[in-house]
């Protein structure tokens, strides 16, 4: 199974968030919990679904990640953009604060 993380959008502002190992949510993919087995993924998905039912997050889904020394990195243009913000407005989105 490929390494997998869980992402969603935050209810308050729709911003991209990632599920962390302690069951919280972070704006940074670097903080995301990475599932390396089906069992781990099921566990994370159950946490995400509970958060969605509780109403704090919207539309959670699992996606494949690369890992570098255990830290997750996005694969594919869509997930890369979600970690940053619009490539045509680098003054907006998460990339603005991180640059």
């Amino acid at each position: 199974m490929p390494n997998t993380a869980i992402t969603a959008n935050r209810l308050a502002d729709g911003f991209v968030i990632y599920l962390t190992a302690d069951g919280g949510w972070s704006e940074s993919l670097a903080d995301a919990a990475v599932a390396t087995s089906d069992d781990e993924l099921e566990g994370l998905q159950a946490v995400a679904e509970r958060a969605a039912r509780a109403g704090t997050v919207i539309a959670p889904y699992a996606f494949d990640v690369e890992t570098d020394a255990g830290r997750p990195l996005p694969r594919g243009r869509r997930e890369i953009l979600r970690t940053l913000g619009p490539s045509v407005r680098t003054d907006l989105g998460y990339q603005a604060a991180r640059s």
Partner: protein
Amino acid sequence: MYRYDEFDHTFVTQRVAQFREQVARRIAGELTEDEFKPLRLMNGLYLQLHAYMLRVAIPYGTLSSRQLRQLGYIARRYDRGYGHFTTRQNIQFNWPTLKDVPDILADLAAVEMHAIQTSGNCIRNTTADATAGVAADEVADSRIYCEIIRQWSTLHPEFSFLPRKFKIAVTGSGRDRAVTAAHDIGLRLKLDADGNPGFEVLVGGGQGRTPILAVTIREFLPERHLLSYLEAILRVYNQLGRRDNIYKARIKILVRETGRDEFARLVEEEWAHIRDGELRLPDGEIERIQAYFAPPAYQALDDACPELAVQRAGNRAFDAWVGSNVEAHKRPGYAVVTISLKPHGGIPGDASAEQMEAVADLADRYGFGEIRVTYKQNLLLPDIRKGDLFALWQGLVAAGLATANAHRVTDIIACPGLDYCNLANARAIPVAQAISERFADPERERAIGNVTVNISGCINACAHHHVANIGILGVDKKGKEFYQVTLGGAADENAAIGDIVGPAFDEDRIADAVETVVDVYLAERRGADEPFIDTYRRIGLKPFKEKLYAAH
């Protein structure tokens, strides 16, 4: 301009209050996302890639300066200082927070605007000829009919849950300036033998994954029957359109599978039951609506404007701008001005809050306070005295809005693409920027002449790539963006769907590919008067294809 009546005011205000309560219940956890999603979509609130997006309706693309100023205020107060004008002649705000949306809707309601029916399987904002009421060649002012359609289609109980979304377009003359052939229903104003206005009715056009041009089901529909005939078409569609497969749910599929003649027969059969009923427009109704669109207080001017000739001769940049962005007006001494939202290398359709305010001020100072949004994602000032063009242009230069490229190769339509949109497969804006920069030399751009370049980030074709002279479709191949090129599409009265040229190009080669296409055109055209589309129709795909793939 049309103003809300008491019913409109009361309803929109009630809707804002209702949505405010729904948002509060959602934030309090009393509504699930599944319950809330249809409610937010009914109020124009989408969830996009990075944030929520609010799509605000601009009925048939017509704005007062007060409304545009308010959009600028909303952009600054609640968003990130800008808005994005779309091919649907609407505006989108890309960063609203959920709790602010009711306040935004209240601020919109204060200037007779809303976000209702900008989503969902209902009748959407009517696409209009942006030069309605002022075009030198128009048969009749199409805004009157757009407004009649707006009143009829707003909250129409029978058509709130159609098989799929539904878009109507109206153009005011034989020149199609509203892409009518690519709409669910296209209406082309014409006169009968006695000089009475009516419509050629087209049905079943659409883009997306199955591009189909609309077919004419009625050569002439007298204006009094407009609503009953539209209702008959919608009823046939509502009853027979597919609800089991989203990809086959648009009316274009129904018309294609039923056949034009049979579909027309079904419509006529339904129409026979209702044509003389309550939807028949009573005497005086068209005149009543017409009064809202009465011409402004034009001055009696000579059409010749010697001052303008002197100003053009003395300023090359101004001269170039007049050459591309100024068109004939029906009244002597006046002109129609396109304000390009396509700065070279910029983001097509974006305008900052300051630019919206600047345009509103210029519309007040030099026009009659009216602004249009074009389906090409530009703004338009309909009534400018020729003698004021130079001062207006100076104001636009100061606001960064004087790009002289209307209808030219850098006047590119681009959807938000993967930079913003949840449905997109590839980015569209960076490709538009790369092409725009490639052709930024004004002399070269002028030499190329009029050509349409449209870029969609997915098969939904929001940027109308199928009907562009040069169409570009972004696709995803294993996480990488590629761009498929089509040639020979057209969005005017000779509408055509473009031909796929061959294998897609990657991000680094797509601007080169467009340049190659333009070079082939320049080499093959019979003089500067032969526009790209005419050359393409004369020589076909082959010369372009040979050059594009020569090295492979």
